[in-house]
């Protein structure tokens, strides 16, 4: 039996034996059959097969109308945490965390950014000090999406301030309900609080929740970020979906025949299509094992286009665009809300900031893809504690 046949048979079985009424139970069954991350080893939600087969599985489940929104609900876990555990975790850690992550019984968050360390993640200051079989963590994280509902957090800490910044970091999984963890909402431009500041006051983390070696935190953080940038903007989506779909909808609703607006709409449509085709090509090349420069442009282009398209959509609405339906309320966002174009427009401003700013993405393309010389670095071989911080 070919791998494709084997996977198809398992999908048939999943669909035949499990109802969609209880999504968590369905996802549990999907995990147990090895259809969660098909390229992970057997017993850890996978079958040890080619990664490319996963999109076939996802497509078949979507076509069958099966629940697939766990990836969205638990994006920081399923999109990034899983890859981190797969690459750097022990079998015991994978066994403990992967299944409830996939079923969304346990939500995950990412505790990287700090008030003093955003783009310069490796400059972070949250301290972890060893105490026997435990670590004691004190410091502050910021912009932590989902921290208020998360059970687990992916945490990077500084364990050695005396060496250059990249070398003194250690990575943990932290229990967000542990004593000393304080989560406070941060409200954003839309009035909603998607993200938080998280304070750690002598929080104790058992050493068996450390990921990879002491001092290897940067390596693990890079795995996380690579997967984050794929999770944002690396999706292959059907033609005409996403932000451009909303622009087209508003255009049709307006029944405008203004040739200037139409030209702008079609220009944006074309740019979005080029972005989409690039993502599709990048994913094909990656599957074939020959990823090229196309793969590193997704997040950058997506952010720019999303901002422009949502802004244009509001413009298409004319003065109606100057209305903010429902008004501003300082609240936690309500699950899977419909987003009116005005709110989508405001929310899109974050796209070129979250998950690495567009300036940083361009530095990466310039230096890693094109091989241009890096900017002079003042903090390279300096012990972290001696780096200027303004």
């Amino acid at each position: 039996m070919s791998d494709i046949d084997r996977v198809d048979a398992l999908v048939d079985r999943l669909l035949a034996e499990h109802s969609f009424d209880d999504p968590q139970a369905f996802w549990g069954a999907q995990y147990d059959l090895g259809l969660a991350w098909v390229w992970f080893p057997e017993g850890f939600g996978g079958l040890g097969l080619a990664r490319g087969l996963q999109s076939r599985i996802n497509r078949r489940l979507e076509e069958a109308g099966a629940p697939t929104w766990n990836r969205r609900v638990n994006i920081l876990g399923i999109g990034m945490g899983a890859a981190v555990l797969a690459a750097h975790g022990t079998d015991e850690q994978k066994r403990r965390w992967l299944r409830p992550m996939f079923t969304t019984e346990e939500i995950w968050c990412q505790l990287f950014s700090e008030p003093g360390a955003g783009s310069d993640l490796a400059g972070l200051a949250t301290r972890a000090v060893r105490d026997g079989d435990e670590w004691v963590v004190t410091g502050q994280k910021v912009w932590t999406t989902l921290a208020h509902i998360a059970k687990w957090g992916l945490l990077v800490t500084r364990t050695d301030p005396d060496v250059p910044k990249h070398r003194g970091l250690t990575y943990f999984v932290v229990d967000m309900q542990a004593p000393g963890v304080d989560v406070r909402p941060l409200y954003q431009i839309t009035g909603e609080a998607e993200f938080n500041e998280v304070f750690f006051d002598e929080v104790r983390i058992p050493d068996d929740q450390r990921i990879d070696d002491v001092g290897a935190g940067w390596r693990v953080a890079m795995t996380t970020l690579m997967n984050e940038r794929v999770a944002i903007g690396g999706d292959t989506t059907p033609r005409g979906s996403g932000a451009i779909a909303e622009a087209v909808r508003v255009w049709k609703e307006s029944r405008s025949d203004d040739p200037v607006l139409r030209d702008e709409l079609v220009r944006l449509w074309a740019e979005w299509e080029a972005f989409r085709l690039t993502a599709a090509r990048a994913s094909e090349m990656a599957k074939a094992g020959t990823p090229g420069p196309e793969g590193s442009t997704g997040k950058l282009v997506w952010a720019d286009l999303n901002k422009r398209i949502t802004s244009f959509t509001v413009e298409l609405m004319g003065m109606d665009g100057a209305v903010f339906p429902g008004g501003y309320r300082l609240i936690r966002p309500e699950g899977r809300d419909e987003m009116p174009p005005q709110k989508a427009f405001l929310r899109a401003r974050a796209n070129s900031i979250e998950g690495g700013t567009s300036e940083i993405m361009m530095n990466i393309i310039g230096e890693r893809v094109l091989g241009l010389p890096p900017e002079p670095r003042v903090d390279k071989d300096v012990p972290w504690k001696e780096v200027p911080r303004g």
Partner: protein
Amino acid sequence: MAERQVSYAPTEELELIRSTAREFLADRLGIPVVRELMMSESGFDRSVWKELAELGWTGLTIDEAHGGGGFGFVELSVLAEEMGRAVTPGPFLASAVLATEAIKAAGTAEQQAALLPRLASGEAVATVAVWERPRGWGLDDVATTATPEASGWALSGTKRFVLDAHLADLLVVAARLPDGEVGLFVVEAGASGMSIDQVPALDPTRRIADVVFDGARTAMLLGDGPGADALARALRLGLVALANEQVGGAQRCLEMSVEHAKTRYQFGRPIGSFQAIKHRCAEMLVRVEQARSAAYYAARVTDDTDELRVAAPLAAALCSEAYLWVAGENIQVHGGIGFTWEHDAHLYFKRAKASTLLFGDPRHHRRMLGDALGL
């Protein structure tokens, strides 16, 4: 069409207006107050209007005989710029610019004598009700009708996006006369047959409302006849004031960015030392200065009807786009903090976006400019 020679030299008087305005706005309408007002039901505090009246702002361009300051549009533009800088909420643009200028341009001597002193003294707030459709910025789009009655008129129709209508004591309403011309009617708040419904605004520092006229009665038709030209003039002056306001807002965003770029360290250096940020700030300055030139020029040619037909849409198109771009990049330069409610960047960004929608989008202004140039 010939460009006019104008002077940009700052006079002592203008500088005094500017510094007084900046001081007053900082003391009385600082950002914490703006934030409080923008989350309040009405979005404004009438006692502030009284204070503005005492400063002479509510009747700045109304002549002294009617209790105003007798100043020109250059002085008014300085106030507008300072208010843009401070994202000041309230009906200044609606009342002291649009309604005032409509009444000045269209009203008979008696009508002006009856209305302008009330506006100048701050006793009454006014606005204009013109627009009815989301992209209908032209006067051709006015469909509200005025039907003559035994004494006065009855208005019927729905106005949308009326600035600060819920605060207004007087509404200057554009409606079709029986002969199809647009007339300007003055309706007092509380008139029967008129209902005002505030709608939530993208820019919570500038409120808008829908106003429904269902046979609303009024006795006052400004100028006792057609008023389209007067309204067009008032709207152009509104654009000039708005353009100067946009320059003030954009300038403030530039300053926030530069300040942040100098003090925020990443990778052991101030982020302003990265060319990506340094060049962005430099480009902000360039765009603000281009916009300022157009706005300042427009403010200095308001007495020349032909030139204003060029200068007003020119300033509106340039300043709208410049402000929106600068306010957006200001968020980017700030990173995560720029996306928060707590930071002021979003107040400017929302004001900038709404300002490109409420008075005509830049494409509309360019169309008007093209028409004025005969292109």
